[in-house]
């Protein structure tokens, strides 16, 4: 399955998100802006839940390109230590178990989990216990 856009994930396996580091200030943002002020930088695979909500209704199409069939999904902000806080879906987690500060790991996820060939979007899941 292909990423939803070029330049979002590294080519390694498993992949990481690609952020952009401002060449002068060192500030890191996601995604990497397409201009010469920023250089691509791989983002941490692990992070902590900064905040979250549950999307309970199907977003309007356009622009939403997900499946017609709708199941509620968590939309979160995940703090990647020393880098930035990224917005992403959460997967493989009970909504009731969500807690700010919990450990998460990056896992690109199909936009349509029921399709054989879906695009992958940025997502995190609870980190495996060490």
């Amino acid at each position: 399955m292909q990423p939803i856009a070029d330049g979002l994930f590294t080519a390694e396996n498993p992949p990481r998100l690609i952020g952009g580091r401002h060449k002068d200030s060192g500030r890191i943002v996601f995604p990497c802006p397409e201009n010469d002020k920023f250089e691509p930088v791989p983002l941490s695979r692990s992070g902590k839940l900064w905040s979250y909500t549950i999307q309970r209704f199907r977003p309007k199409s356009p622009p939403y390109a997900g499946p017609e069939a709708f199941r509620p999904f968590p939309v979160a902000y995940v703090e990647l230590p020393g880098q930035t806080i990224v917005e992403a879906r959460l997967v493989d987690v009970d909504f009731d178990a969500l807690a700010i500060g919990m450990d998460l790991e990056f896992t690109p996820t199909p936009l349509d989990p029921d399709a054989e060939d879906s695009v992958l979007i940025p997502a995190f899941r609870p980190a495996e216990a060490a």
Partner: protein
Amino acid sequence: MGEVCIIGVGIHPFGRTEGMSGVDQGVFAVRQALSDAGIEWGDVQFAYGASEAAGNPDTMVDQLGLTGMQFINVRNGCAAGGSALFSAQMAIKSGECDIGMAVGFDKHPRGAFDAKPAEYNLPDWYGDAGFMVTTQFFANKIMRYMQLNGISRETLGRVSEKAFRNGEKAPHAWRRQPVPLDEILDAPMVSDPYSKYMFCSPAEGGVALILASEKKARELGVKPIRLKAATMRTRPPGSFEVFAPSIDIERGGSATNIASTDAFRIAGMGPEDIDVAQLQDTEAGAELMHMAENGFCADGDQEKWLIDGLTEIGGKLPVNTDGGCLACGEPIGASGLRQVYENVVQLRGAGGARQVPGDPKTAYSHVYGAPGVSAVTILER
């Protein structure tokens, strides 16, 4: 230099009005404001008009009269009305004109706003993946705020409960039916922790304010409400805004912080001097966070303020006396001006069943919008 005064106000009721365009509702509000000020359309030298989705405001001259006056259209998200008012008062302050108007109206389709990524300088995939939803941001913002500051979900419910109770007493409000707290808390969820009663809806409506120089107001013999400050500001570094694929770990202030601080400085007042406030409440938590962001209380104090009823109409600082966006809905172009309309009504003592007791002398209004804009006004009688 003299002060800028508000000498006339008009409103078309908010909600849904079949058979009336957004422009029609704006025109309705203008005629009411002219009559309130006791002047004719031909007396108005200029206007700033705000509309997000209901057409160009300057087309109003077709109905109001082709006097050749100057009419400037304003688009600035949820701060459009505030921006129109800011611009209008500048024209008078500069001495260029001595009587003008700020007007705003809108008419949105039902359902959530359908923003497109390109309008916000964002890549298409962001919308494809389902992130182009304003409610996600508001919910994420309050979820963290509640955790850090000990705010309960019940307190969110109390904000909505108060809004519908106040809306019942405001003739221009849309939702005029009180809803019990448990029904608000148990209603279907839209975006956790918010149920459907905790978000406002896109709506319709129109508001017009007639502004004049102090000298002109005196000539006309009207009792003016003084515009002590009108500020409009954009975001500082490290703020958290709607449609943000990433945010900085190092947290900063907000556009609201800056607009508020500057308004108090310009007016020569502090939060303790304000008798009534209208604070942007597109969702229940916004009213709570904006109480703190505008300097009226410390983060976390809102829990006790709401339990003690301090923001009720008879409380220490009445907030959103007409039910705010939660009860009036949000026609983007008109929303910020509705707050100022309500403040003028309160300062005139004309609030009827929702009148703030104790003869209020100062009033504060605040709007916030995407992608990090805020506008504040302070009025004094």
